[in-house]
């Protein structure tokens, strides 16, 4: 039975969208783990399900009812939440902390009843915190604190328990201990568990279902075998990994190999960029992200675009620092330009030293190359040649140079280039 439904959920802080297009169903008694790289929106998703963040778009329902229609106490009787890194600065004993879990069931000034007592003690017994119940929460280890917090969540007698990285900062023995406990509760009491987990191997070993998030979207959800494939991991984490079956745990085991290399994307056109003085930095990073075969030139050694291109290992034609482009250099650049599909001109200030760059673009367009100019700030003067550069620019436009006023439009053009 589906007990949790998320339908086209979207959430963000202001313009920044943390989660978008989230569709998710969770069945009763499922052990679901949310995995994905840092900043993918894992914790946020958990908090949305618990109605801690209320101003989202879309629908979230628990047992068929909109979460926002629950009173806080009502919801707390169904769902409990174990947050990450709870900072407990006040000297409550573990027992006092666990008894707090009974809050949603109690009336004001009602003292703890036998029933509250039984449930809290059972929660402590299950989590092995009974023997340390009188210790102060400020004086226990990370593992003990995590178990105490789980005991508090269990004292809420929930049907669904949400955990945000319950194993972070724990030693490996405590990690396994906590997850074994959760699995046992999941199996024996049919407790539905949704947990954010960092460790893919633990997620694969204990979960029934996985949700892989990337950049606020569900990249893949389904059973462990469907989600934990080498290509999904590579996609989400930009890292190559080997996925194999661990015979001992009978679960998939992931071994990270190396960060993913930027593959040249053959379906996209190759590009030569004319830039300088920092005008090409955003263009370079966007083009490289798409895996485009990119070259730059001519750039003076030491120029800020030169530094970036150097560190990104982009193919480049360079000239000595602060000197005008020489004949020989421009020929090499022209040869490089000819091997590419498109010449992109950034909004680079043109002086006598780099005027040859523009003239090369003119040569290229005359030979039938596509030339594109990214004119993001039309107010900005780039002509420091008393009109020569403007004349060449107008010449280029009359010969069919395409002008874009934003990087996004340029990227659209490039992505649709081949299909045209």
């Amino acid at each position, binding site marked *: 039975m589906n007990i949790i439904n998320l339908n086209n959920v979207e959430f963000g802080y202001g313009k920044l969208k943390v989660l978008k297009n989230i569709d998710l169903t969770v069945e009763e008694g499922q052990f679901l783990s949310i995995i994905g790289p840092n900043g993918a929106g894992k914790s946020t998703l958990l908090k949305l399900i618990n109605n801690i963040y209320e101003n989202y778009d879309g629908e979230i329902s628990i047992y068929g009812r909109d979460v926002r229609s629950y009173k806080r106490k009502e919801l707390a009787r169904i769902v409990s939440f174990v947050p990450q890194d*709870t900072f407990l*600065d006040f000297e409550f004993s573990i027992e006092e902390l666990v008894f707090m879990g009974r809050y949603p069931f109690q009336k004001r000034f009602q003292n703890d009843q036998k029933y509250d007592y039984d449930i809290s003690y059972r929660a402590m017994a299950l989590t092995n915190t009974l023997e340390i119940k009188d210790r102060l929460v400020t004086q226990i280890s990370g593992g003990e604190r995590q178990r105490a917090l789980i005991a508090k969540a269990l004292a809420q007698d929930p049907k669904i328990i*949400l955990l945000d990285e319950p194993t972070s900062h724990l030693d490996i023995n405590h990690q396994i201990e906590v997850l074994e406990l959760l699995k046992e509760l999941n199996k024996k009491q049919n407790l539905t568990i949704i947990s954010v987990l960092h460790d893919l191997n633990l997620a694969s070993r204990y979960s029934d279902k996985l949700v892989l998030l990337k950049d606020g979207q569900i990249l893949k959800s389904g059973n462990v075998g469907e989600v934990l494939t080498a290509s999904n991991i590579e996609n989400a984490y930009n890292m190559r990994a080997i996925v194999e079956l661990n015979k001992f745990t009978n679960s998939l085991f992931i071994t990270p190999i190396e960060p993913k290399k930027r593959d040249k994307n053959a379906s996209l056109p190759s590009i030569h960029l004319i830039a300088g003085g920092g005008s090409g930095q955003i263009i370079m990073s966007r083009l490289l992200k798409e895996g485009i075969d990119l070259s730059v030139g001519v750039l003076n050694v030491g120029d800020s675009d030169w530094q970036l291109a150097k560190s990104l290992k982009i193919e480049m034609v360079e000239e000595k620092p602060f000197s005008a482009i020489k004949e020989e250099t421009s020929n090499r650049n022209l040869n490089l330009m000819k091997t590419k599909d498109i010449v992109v001109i950034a909004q680079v200030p043109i002086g006598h030293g780099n005027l040859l760059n523009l003239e090369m673009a003119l040569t290229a367009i005359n030979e039938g190359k596509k030339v594109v100019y990214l004119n993001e700030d039309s107010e900005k003067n780039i002509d420091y040649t008393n009109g020569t550069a403007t004349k060449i620019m107008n010449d280029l436009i009359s010969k069919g140079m395409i002008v874009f006023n934003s990087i996004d439009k340029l990227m659209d053009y490039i992505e649709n280039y081949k299909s045209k």
Partner: protein
Amino acid sequence: MEHNYRKKSKLSIIIGLMVLLAIIVAVVSAIGSANIKASDVYRIILSKIPIINKYVNIENITDAQFAIIWNVRLPRVILGILVGSSLSVAGVSFQGLLKNPMSDPYILGVSSGAALGATIAIINHLEYVKYGFSSITFAAFIGAIISVFIVYNIGRINNKLSTNTLLLAGVAVGQFFTAIMSFLMVVNSNDMSKIIYWTMGSLSGKGWNPVKSLSIPILLTIVVLIYYSKELNILLTGDETAKSMGVNVERTKRIILVLGTLLTSLVVSVSGIIGFVGLIIPHIARIIFGPDHKILLPCSAIVGAIFMIITDAISRTLISPVEIPVGIITAMFGGPFFIYLLRSKKKMM
């Protein structure tokens, strides 16, 4: 069962503290000129209670002694109890709510608002008395409420109270009001000593009137705050955790802030700014009684009351007949004691 035992022990702590308070009330009322015994204080109190007074013999107490105790010292001691317990309860609530050990009842600008209000009344020589309250008291109360209102509205972002913004707004508005007060003081230098005395706080010469009108609102507010002790406990685990446990965090915060500032404004407008009590008594009570607000709130109310009436007794007898503003005594005696507690606690750990 063990939890019954614990509950009993908590109750016995509170009863024990009450008895201690009753003893100290008599002792501090008897201290001073006029040579009165502590037991006489009880007889005077009992003689004022209907029915019981038939069985109390006060023949050997002179009229002068009776008047000193009943008209001067007792109202002063009871006002001290009200002020001490209010400041302590407000301090405990704010420290828990804002999760900041530096919080005191004045953190949201109550004191500087009240001081500015009182200053305006003093320099304008508004001297009428209504319902037993002076115009200074009224002006101080209005000043306190205005400054808290400003701070609260700055601290509210998108209908949510941001703790840090609230604290910083309290500091900024407080400094601003204090600056205006200082300016007014410099311009009206004739009234300077009166203003300074007011800001240092005093319980002297107020009579029964403030006690009569303040006790019921103060007691009610304290009871309601104790009513919220479970929520205050859970809020210590963090706002998000508290939400997930079923606490309506925003509403609870608002209620506690409003009640705490009301409590503070009421007593400050009568007694002036008595520092230290609302900051240190909560810490002392927390060290002794633990963090559970259900016991911490009532205990710190009683401990605050005891501390207040003892320091007040010192303030009026130390260099008698000159009265030292009680705020000076609270800091002078409370500071070293608190440092001692902090150090001995460190050794324990």
